[in-house]
Every structure is written in structure tokens, then in C-alpha cells.
């Protein structure tokens, strides 16, 4: 029913990331919880793919599964045609928590860390690449300080720099701006888009903010809980910060809102 909204791609390339009828379950002492139920989507290279939904819809669990931290009980996830079986640095993660930066390493050493751990790039290039990445997120002056001296927004920038410096196949971001204040959050969204304009990475981004989803995404997957499933997949290439507050933006936002809200009513009905 939403197919009419999709733009007609004349050429559809082979997807970079395929999530193929993936069911995710985890065991608690009381019962088995189904986080997602047979969810599927394809991500094209250079997509800014946003998983949007309320808490409990399994979006974070799904992202962790793409990251290789949780194995699907059903279905499979393929990255560039290869089945995802374990964590790896071709899928760099940016988390919500500020303690994802290792406090015992300086900013630049935090960026070097994954290169050292995975032996990616020649050793002689590590520092230069790390410094360049730190410069790119505007923290050149802070390259040699320890993370505890940085603000939340700066820590998230370093985490993004660390992930991008590895030149991953896909960047996975799990509500990276959710713990930031609203003003910083807006700025980080803008900066992320600028980085994308510059580097053109492929991104899977998890959020529960409709505004954030519309501003950031090239494509939005809307998920509802109990069990987590995909209720819609939207194209959002026409929206950016400039459109925020505009009538089309608001209408789109309202439409997603209704979808999420309807899901709630069914679930509790």
C-alpha cells in the first residue's frame, strides 16, 4: 500500500546489506522474548537508513544483530552478499552511551585503537588517519586530551570519528544523540549530514524521534512493538533540516505518528 510513495528507481543495484526474514529472540528467566519477527529490508550503498520506532520494538536488538552481537533465531543478515556471523570492524558501531570511548586512551588513541586491534591500514598511517578523522569532526584541538574532559556531544563526535576512520562497509548508530540536550542534538544531526555529504558512507541509524528520522534518513523503516515488526518503509530523500517545520514535513511526520499510534492501539486493543 505504500509502494506508490516510493520513487521509481530505474536501476536498483544489488543491496549492500540484506536483512532477510530475521527473527530475534532472547531468553529471560521468565520467558522467551521475541524482539523482532521476520523483518526484512534491503540497504543500498550510501543509504542513510533509519530504523524508527518506540522502545521495545526491537530496533536496537536488530541493529546489534547486524553488528553480529546477537545471532538470529530465524532468517539471515548478509553484508555484501556474505552472511553476518560475528562482530567485525566492517560494521563499526556508535553507541548511545558516552562510555563507549575508552577512558584510558586519549582522543586520538581511541581512534587508533580499532586500527591497532584489527591491523587495518599500515601501522605508519594510523596516527595520521586518526588525526585527520578527529580534525574532520572539528576536534583537532582536543586530539591529545583524555575523554573525561570532553562534553557529551564531543564524546559522540569522537566515537563517530573513530568509526568513520576505519572506513567500514556500513556505519551502525544506536540512538547516538539520544543522551544529548536538544540543542546539541540538532547540531549533531546537521554535522552528521555534512559528513555524509563529504564521505558518502552507508549508515543504519536507530532512533525513536520522528523528527530525527525524517531529517537524517534517505529511507525510513517504521517499526512497532510486541513483537517488533516493520509496518512501513518510506523514502525520505526529499527532507532535510531546511524542510523541518514545513507543511509537507509536518504532514509526513503526522503520517508516521499515526502509523506508530495505530500499532499501539492494536497491541493494547
Amino acid at each position: 500500500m505504500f509502494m506508490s510513495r516510493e520513487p521509481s528507481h530505474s536501476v536498483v543495484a544489488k543491496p549492500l546489506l540484506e536483512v532477510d526474514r530475521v527473527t530475534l529472540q532472547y531468553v529471560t528467566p521468565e520467558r522467551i522474548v521475541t524482539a523482532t519477527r521476520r523483518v526484512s529490508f534491503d540497504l543500498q550503498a550510501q543509504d542513510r537508513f533509519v530504523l524508527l520506532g518506540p522502545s521495545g520494538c526491537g530496533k536496537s536488538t536488530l541493529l546489534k544483530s547486524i553488528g553480529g552481537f546477537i545471532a538470529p533465531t530465524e532468517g539471515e543478515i548478509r553484508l555484501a552478499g556474505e552472511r553476518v556471523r560475528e562482530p567485525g570492524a566492517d560494521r563499526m558501531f556508535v553507541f548511545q552511551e558516552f562510555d563507549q570511548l575508552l577512558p584510558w586512551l586519549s582522543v586520538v588513541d581511541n581512534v587508533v585503537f580499532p586500527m591497532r586491534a584489527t591491523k587495518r591500514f599500515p601501522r605508519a598511517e594510523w596516527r595520521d588517519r586518526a588525526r585527520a578523522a578527529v580534525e574532520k569532526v572539528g576536534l583537532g584541538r582536543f586530539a591529545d586530551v583524555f575523554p573525561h574532559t570532553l562534553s557529551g556531544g564531543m564524546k559522540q563526535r569522537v566515537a563517530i570519528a573513530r568509526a568513520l576512520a576505519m572506513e567500514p562497509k556500513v556505519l551502525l548508530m544506536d540512538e547516538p544523540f539520544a543522551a544529548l540536550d536538544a540543542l546539541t542534538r540538532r547540531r549533531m544531526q546537521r554535522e552528521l549530514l555534512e559528513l555524509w555529504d563529504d564521505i558518502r558512507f552507508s549508515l543504519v541509524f536507530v532512533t525513536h524521534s520522528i523528527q530525527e528520522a525524517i531529517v537524517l534518513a534517505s529511507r525510513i523503516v517504521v517499526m512497532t512493538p510486541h513483537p517488533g515488526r516493520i509496518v512501513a518503509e518510506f523514502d525520505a530523500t526529499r527532507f532535510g533540516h531546511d524542510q523541518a517545520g514545513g507543511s509537507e514535513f509536518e504532514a509526513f511526520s503526522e503520517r508516521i505518528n499515526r502509523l506508530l499510534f495505530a500499532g499501539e492501539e492494536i497491541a493494547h486493543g
Partner: protein
Amino acid sequence: MAEPEIFSPARPGEPAPRPDILRPAIDDLAPDVVVERGLIVRLAETTWLRRVAVVVVLGVIWEVYARQLANPLMFPSLTETLEAFVAGLRSGALVSAVSGSLRILLVGYGVAVVLSTLITALAIGTRIGTDVLSTLTSMFNPLPAIAILPLAMLWFGLGVGSVVFVIVHSVLWAVSLNTLTGFQSVSATQRMVGRNYGLKGFAFVRAILIPAAFPAILSGLKIGWAFSWRTLIAAELVFGVSGGAAGLGWYIFQNRNALETPNVFAGLLTVIVIGLLVEGVVFRAIESATIRRWGMQA
């Protein structure tokens, strides 16, 4: 601001509308207010100075009490103790006692720390390993080292071996318990960060768990150090007569037998001073180079 809002009627109880104010962003160039802090206030904020003050006060109380008591056989004064201390250093008896004790202590402590690192690193990898180590530490940590000394003497004879064995026992479980607890409390995010880069096994322990759990590990090392001292002195008190390696415990025991109470106090004072030095210099230096620098401890 929109003008109509200024004239809109206030809700009941709301203050009357006031005009908006826009301040141009120009500094008025007034100098910052500087609060002068007196010398005493600044000195009082120096940690080591406060600590020294505590020691000085305790010393004065000791001196005054002992002089009133006037019974050096039971409770010598601070000056008498210091005299005995200096005399012990001059004669070399105290020096050789200290060096004898320290040598055994460092061997036992070193062996225990290495062992503890190995078994904790092995244990943390699997759930059953963690269960085994947790059970072992809860079994052996409460067991006083001195209680297994008779057994150690049976196994290793009346010598250095027995003392080293009980020191290892007293340090190993305390350090392991702290390290394991530290490993287990490393945040899920930091674990995932490590695994994201494909780190596994010992590489994961070395690159993520050990630095992330360093505050807990360091506090375990401190506790272990204190335990090793206690155990060593106690063991030497029980049987100091072990070849030439007569240590501080034996020094204390012998002087008590000779009723040289100031020397007994000098021996105890030595234990305290070494403890303070290791805590205040060695561990403090490690802390400021690591966990304080990293902001993991205030």
C-alpha cells in the same frame, strides 16, 4: 518577541507581562572578580599536608600519654621509640630484619599477583570458569593465612617456602576476587566496543577488561599488599628461626622476650612506616599515572 503576547491577558496568578530585553553581546570589560584565599585555607586544601597533620597530632597524643604513664617497659614514649628505631638502624639489626622481610614479601606478593592475573584471565572467558573462581575465592578468602601455616610447615618445612606459601594464599584470593568483580562490572558498551573490533580471548582481556577494571584491580592490589604484610609478620612471630632470614616479626618477638619494649615499638613503627610509604608513594604514583589521569577516580 511577538508583540501580541505582551498584551495578552495574564493567566490568574501569573505576573503582569513585561517587555522583552535584548542585550548586545559586548563585554563590559570589567575584570573578573578574584576572591583572595588566605594561606591557611590554601594549605588546608593540600591533601598530604592534612595527612601529615593527622600523624603529628597522633604523635603528640602518644608522647603526652606515655610521659604521664612513665612506664617504658609497658608503653614507651614516641621519643624512646624513635631512639630505639635510630639505634636499630645504626646497629644494622633493624635494617637486616626489614630487608629479610621485604625480600620474602616481594617474592610472595609477586607470585600471587602473577598467578591471580592468570587464573582470572582464564576464568573470565567462560561461565563455568567464573563459577569455579567465585567459589574458590569465597572458600579461601575468609580462611586466615596463619591458620594454614601449620600445614605449610608440614609440607614445605621450617623455611622461606612455608612463609611464601601462606603469603601467596593471603594475597591470591583477595586480588582475584577484586579483579574478577572488576572484570564483571565492565560496562556492556565497552565490552561491545572491544568485540566490535574482533577482540577475543586474552587480547580482549588485555586491551579492554584490564584497563577498564583497573580501579578495582588496583584496590585489590592494595588490599593484597596489606594482607601480605600482616601474614608475613604473623608467620615470623610464630617461627622466626629460619636460617639467616630472620625478619621483622622475629625482631619484634625477640625484643619482647628480652623486654626491650622500645625496640618492639620500633619494629611495629617500621611496619607502619613502610605501609605508609608504599601506600603514599608507590600506589599513589600508580594512581595518578593511571586512573586519576583517565578520570576514572576523582
